[in-house]
């Protein structure tokens, strides 16, 4: 297999990213992909049940209340999806603990680790120049700074929205440990963080990860876990050169599998997500404009 890798990859193979013979690199473990699936499903449920409660006057809220059988139903389902959401968080923590214990994450602070490093700041500056056509592409490691931000934004968001949601769910218990105003603050946190998380995932994450012209409509790596070798070379040159240097066992022949389920599932999720994004953003902007007018009066 190493003989194949030492040869330059044919230009033709690069043009057919789904060629059965393409070499792939293991990027996401089964556990990581399962966590993403639970997280994505929960987030969609949370958005579809929570946003109509936040903007109850809109026409789409009324349609969604039919789906959830009323405001009470939407509130109940929101809590069901919240449990799924927190489970995804727990799955990730378990995965990280298992990964560290078994030695599968030897260098999380290294150039191919998930932790932020000073080079990420340099990569950001370089990449902004590169994207405008004024310089070379930065030598990204396994995770670009944008992907690291995506990850830490999710961690931060899960904590803020999860904790504030629990305060709203169990206000009496929360008031036992927090002052009264903090319960009111939790509502504000939850409301804005919901808007922020939904907006970030359904626009920045969607367009940077799944709706980029190169992988449109979905980056299938999150379904298969395998990233074609030519994409590693193209997108993560730093990681690519380190993989080649160490002759890692991560490079495997691609397993032949249908791409259709991935496209169907993601097609459904992405289209619902984009519709919700537009609807909620319009409602939020209208509300913001109204309160600005009130403020000026």
């Amino acid at each position, binding site marked *: 297999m190493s003989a194949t890798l030492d040869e330059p990859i044919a230009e033709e193979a690069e*043009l057919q990213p*789904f060629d059965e013979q393409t070499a792939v690199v293991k990027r996401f473990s089964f556990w990581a992909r399962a966590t993403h699936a639970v997280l994505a499903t929960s987030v969609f449920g949370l958005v579809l049940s929570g946003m109509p*409660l*936040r903007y*109850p006057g809109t026409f789409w*809220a009324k*349609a969604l*209340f*039919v*789906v959830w*059988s*009323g*405001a*009470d139903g939407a*509130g109940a389902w929101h809590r069901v999806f919240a449990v799924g959401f927190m489970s995804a968080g727990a799955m990730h923590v378990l995965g990280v603990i298992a990964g560290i214990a078994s030695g599968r994450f030897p260098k999380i602070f290294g150039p191919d680790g998930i932790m932020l490093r000073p080079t990420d700041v340099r990569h950001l500056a370089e990449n902004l120049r*590169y*994207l*405008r*056509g004024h310089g*070379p592409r930065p030598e990204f490691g396994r995770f670009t700074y*944008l992907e690291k*931000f995506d990850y830490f934004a999710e961690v931060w968001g899960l904590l803020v929205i999860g904790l504030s949601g629990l305060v*709203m769910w169990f*206000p*009496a*218990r929360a*008031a*036992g440990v927090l*002052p*009264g*105003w903090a319960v*009111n*603050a939790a*509502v*504000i*946190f939850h409301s*804005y*963080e919901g808007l*922020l998380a939904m*907006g*970030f995932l359904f*626009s*920045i994450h969607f*367009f*940077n990860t799944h709706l*980029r*012209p*190169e992988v*449109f*409509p979905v980056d299938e790596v999150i379904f298969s876990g395998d990233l074609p070798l030519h994409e590693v070379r193209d997108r993560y040159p730093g990681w690519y050169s380190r993989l080649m240097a160490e002759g890692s066992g991560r490079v495997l022949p691609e397993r032949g599998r249908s*791409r*259709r389920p991935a496209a*169907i*599932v993601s*097609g*459904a999720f992405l289209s*619902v997500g984009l519709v919700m994004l537009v609807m909620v953003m319009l409602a939020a902007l209208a509300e*913001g404009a109204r*309160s600005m007018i009130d*403020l000026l009066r």
Partner: protein
Amino acid sequence: MRSVPLDPRRIRAIVTGMTLTATLLGVQVLIGSAAAAQEPSPPTISQTSGSSECVGCHADPAIQTATPGRFREGLYVTHGTLAESVHGIFDCTSCHSALTGTMHERRDAAQSSCVRCHPDQAEAFANGMHAEVTDAGPQPTCVTCHGSHGVPPVDTPAFDTRASRECQDCHNEMGDRFFGGNPFGMETHRGGMNVATCSDCHGAHGVLAADDPASPVNRANILETCRQCHTNAPDNFADIRVHVESSPFPSDPRLRMVTLYMLLILVGTFGFFGYHTVLGIKHEWRKTHGLPKVAR
């Protein structure tokens, strides 16, 4: 670099996915509306000669403009109004006992009729602050909050929301704060029945001013009122504001800090990463479509 052709199989798969979602949502809506259709229908008006005779004139919308006086909107009554009403089974003259003849002269109509069937509520009302006559304006009567001809059954979301909306008609600011800023208020406003509404804390018919020692929202009683539902509420539970300003800049400095902090993060994140995303997509579009101005 040549452009990556979009596989027609993938396009078909996306279309299939979108169709599946639309179908699933459609089925949900159908199930929802079928469940709504199965709910017991409201009592229908008995087609007594009296009611039909009255509705004959009162179902003409012109009656509202043709008649002077404060209650003229209530004069417009159709069979539909009465069919939605919990009182629709009664004959008109059960309440409008003072009315005689077809071209009746009296207009004070039903004033004291509610009391005959609802004496407890009437007594509570007589002891409450809404029965006091002040200079503030017209005091509410039964129909101000409950409506008259179309009064809905008490255990339906329509009754709950209607009663609380009627509070909001006079208590605008408090209503806005509860229904616009409190998540439970938002839920009530959409017909949620499992959450508190105005009367659950303030009382209904015998509502008292907050500085009255007997009021359930008096500082001395408020915790007890909270504990009706939040049985395990600790002592500082009453510090939580119930009427929350829906303004983005609350008057409480701590809440204002929280709001400003979140707004800053919101604007900063979308500003920077929005710009970054547009740059990235533009770059990649040029690359996949073989357009110039790409550093390689």
